[in-house]
Every structure is written in C-alpha cells, then in structure tokens.
C-alpha cells in the first residue's frame, strides 16, 4: 500500500470574501472595485492511500481487443491543440451580472478542482502501480485532466482569479479508498460529466443567445475525453466480473443513487447560471440522469430507475432537506438540534432511494459505446 495524494473537491476550496465565495452564507454582490481586484483561490489538498497490490491484480485480458483499440485512441490524442483559445473566444467578464458571475466562478473553480483531483489521482496511480496496462491508461487520463485543469485555470485569469498551490506545507492526514470504490465513483463521475457537458452543449447549440461564456463552445470535445475515460473504467470492471456481482451489486446501486442525488442538490444551488442558460435544473437533471443510465448499461447489471416518479419525489425531498439544513446552520443550539433532525431524515430518504425497485440489465457482449448524444 502506498500513498496517493489527491485533492478534496470544493469543500476545502476557499475563495476570499469579498469576491466569489463557495460558502452558502448569504452572498453579497461584489462592487465594481471588487470585480477589478485580484483574487486568490486556495487549494486545500487531501491525501488518499489505496491498496495498489489489489489494483495491480486487475487483469484486462478478457477485454484485450477492446482495450487495445481504446489505448490506440488515447495515443492518437485527437484533442491535442483543442484546449487553446482561438478567434471564437471573445469575452468581457464585466458583462456578467454579479450574481451570475459569482455562480459561474463557483462552477469554474469546482470544475478545476475536480479536474485537478483527477489528474493527481491518475498520475499517482500510474507512478505507484506495477500493472503495465493500467499504468499506460492512467498516464493518458492524467494528461487529459491536467489539460482540462490548465484550460479552466486560464479562463480564471480573465476574472483575475489566481490559484494558490502553496498548500503542501500544511500537515495533512492520509485517508483510505478501496480500489473498487475508486472504480465505481470515477466511472460514474466521468460518465455523468459527459452527460452534463453534452446536454449543455446541445442546448446552447440550439440557443446560442444563451451562451454567456465562450468556454461552452469547447464542451463537446472536452466531454468526449470524459466519455473515453469512462470507457476505460468500464472495461476494467467488465474484465473483472467479481466487481459486478454479489454484494457489489448493492454498492453499484448506492453509487448511482449518490451521484444522482449529489448532482440534483448541487445544481439547484446555482439558479442564476441555469437561468442564464435557459435551463431548468430539474429537467436538465432528469435528462442527464437518463443519458447516464443509458450509458451505464454497458457495465452495471443493476440500474436505478431514473424515470420512476417516486425517484423524482425523493430527490425533491432531499433538496428541501438540504435547504433546511443550510437555513438551520445559523440558528445556535436550536439550529443544531434542527440540523440533526433534518440530517436523520436525509439518511432515511437516501435509504428510501436505495430501496426503490431497480431495473436489471443484461450486459452486452462488447462494452464500448460511442458518445452519440
């Protein structure tokens, strides 16, 4: 077992106030002077360990032909040169209304953190692993994530937001993830990432007047990278079927519910951004869940029924509970009591989501899919 440093998602991502804040405290619109000031976002890293011996034991022989074709795609690197500004990039950050600007910065910073985390996770897996197939894959995935992180960082320069990378001198504890949980979580993260970006891209393609920032024009090729990463993780799971049977079926249900619930709650916290794009967060969410679930047919033997009305009802309840918890936070002792009660109810609703009837899925003979949405 060796160390695997990575970075927390935006929970520990601090943006100074005044300016873009990721906290959920009431947000004040920044004034003109603030908009012009240089701001710094501080990355606070987290370090993970995993069982690399276990990861190394994953064999990809049962899917060798599909795997080799996929690695050849990675090597061809069709997106080399895509993540550069060109004549289509025309943007003045001062044209965004303050509330939209704040949410959009929050979105960029969250995305940057996710790409940054992915890059370090894959780079460390490549460095520590001994399985040549996996090391080759992780090298290419780290390359793509670093490129995406760099591109978002470049966008942040327009807003005069700098990323502070000086976090290594703070003491950090190492936590632990099982390799199989890394596979479930990153597979879903990559595939839902594809579904999110392609849905936004197609919507803005049809409604160009709603495209308030040029970065959305880059989403199509960008999300094809995410799709390809997901393909690799799907092949790893298909090649090692014990990851998809027995008790692991329950984990697969859990991770699907967790990723859908997370996205539903999170996206509703950015109303300005969705309004500016002309997207209803709930309808957008359902569309993304449908695409993700369709893609998951390539690998998961059990699928959450995202079309069930009860599924949506429970997601709405989770959203209300999340808002209630947020409102209770500032309420002193009574607020803490209320928070505990709401959190207990949240666990119950998550349990109900997990117990909803699922759809069983016969896995196709070949795994690979095309990003055809």
């Amino acid at each position, binding site marked *: 077992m060796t160390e695997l440093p990575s970075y927390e998602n935006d929970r520990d991502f601090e943006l100074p106030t005044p300016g873009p804040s990721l906290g*959920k405290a009431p947000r004040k619109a920044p004034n003109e002077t603030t908009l012009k000031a240089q701001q710094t976002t501080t990355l606070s890293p987290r370090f993970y360990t995993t069982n690399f011996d276990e990861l190394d034991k994953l064999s990809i022989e049962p899917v060798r032909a599909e795997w080799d074709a996929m690695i050849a795609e990675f090597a061809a690197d069709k997106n080399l040169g895509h993540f550069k500004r060109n004549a289509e990039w025309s943007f003045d950050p001062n044209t965004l209304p303050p509330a939209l600007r704040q949410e959009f910065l929050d979105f960029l910073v969250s995305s940057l953190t996710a790409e940054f985390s992915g890059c370090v996770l894959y780079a460390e897996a490549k460095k520590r692993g001994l399985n040549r197939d996996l090391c080759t894959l992780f090298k290419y995935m780290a390359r793509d994530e670093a490129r995406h992180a760099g591109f978002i960082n470049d966008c942040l320069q327009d807003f005069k937001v700098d990323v502070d990378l000086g976090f290594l001198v703070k003491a950090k504890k190492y936590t632990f993830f099982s390799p199989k949980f890394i596979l479930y979580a990153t597979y879903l993260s990559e595939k*839902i990432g594809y579904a999110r970006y392609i849905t936004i891209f197609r919507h803005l393609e049809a409604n160009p007047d709603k495209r308030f920032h040029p970065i959305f024009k880059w989403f199509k090729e960008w999300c094809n990278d995410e799709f390809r990463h997901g393909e690799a993780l799907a092949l790893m799971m298909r090649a090692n079927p014990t990851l998809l049977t027995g008790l692991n079926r329950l984990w697969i249900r859990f991770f699907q519910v967790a990723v859908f619930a997370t996205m539903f*709650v999170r996206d509703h916290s950015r109303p300005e951004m969705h309004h500016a794009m002309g997207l209803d967060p709930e309808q957008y969410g359902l569309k993304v869940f449908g695409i993700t679930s369709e893609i998951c047919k390539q690998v998961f033997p059990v699928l959450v029924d995202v079309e069930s009305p009860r599924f949506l009802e429970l997601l709405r309840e989770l959203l209300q509970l999340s808002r209630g918890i947020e409102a209770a936070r500032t309420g002193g002792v009574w607020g803490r009591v209320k928070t505990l009660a709401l959190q207990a109810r949240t666990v119950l609703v998550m349990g109900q989501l997990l117990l909803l009837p699922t759809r069983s899925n016969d896995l196709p003979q070949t795994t690979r899919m095309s990003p055809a949405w």
Partner: protein
Amino acid sequence: MSGRSFEVGCTVRVSHTFDDLSAHVELDGDLPIHPGDQVRVHGQAINPPYGAVCVERRRATVTRATWFERTWTRLTGDLDCLTLFDFGFTEEP
C-alpha cells in the same frame, strides 16, 4: 518530536502552467504511508507564478497513526469516496 514522528527528505514539484496544473510530494526511499498517517512539508509555501514549474528539495515530517487511528481511517475512509464525484455533496461555509 514524538516517537511516532520522524523527518525525511522529499522532492516537491509544483506546476502552474497552461498544460499542467499539479503538485506532488515524493518522499525519499519510497516510504510507505498508511491510512491515518500525516505528512507535513517544511518551509515556505511553494507557489510558482502562472506559467512556471518549481521543483525543490525539502524536509518533511511524517507522523505515524496509532493502531486505532489507522483502523478507523481504514473503516471510514471509503465514505469520503463521494468526493471523487465532479461536484461535492455539500459546501462548507
């Protein structure tokens, strides 16, 4: 420094370029790090300006976790796996 803590040399690489935004610490001797262990790099923060890569030799303090901490981290760490999603579940104020 307590019995559970010791110093070790390390190489820190921080990249802040268009194509590579990353930060890595490599402890000398490929020292194994276990769940719950803690690592702190000594000295000033390394923060290269945009467009630069910085590689430095530093010292780091490693603090080993107690048996209880290691077991606890091993048992509970997986819950944090949800942080691997591209969007966090909650935001801390």
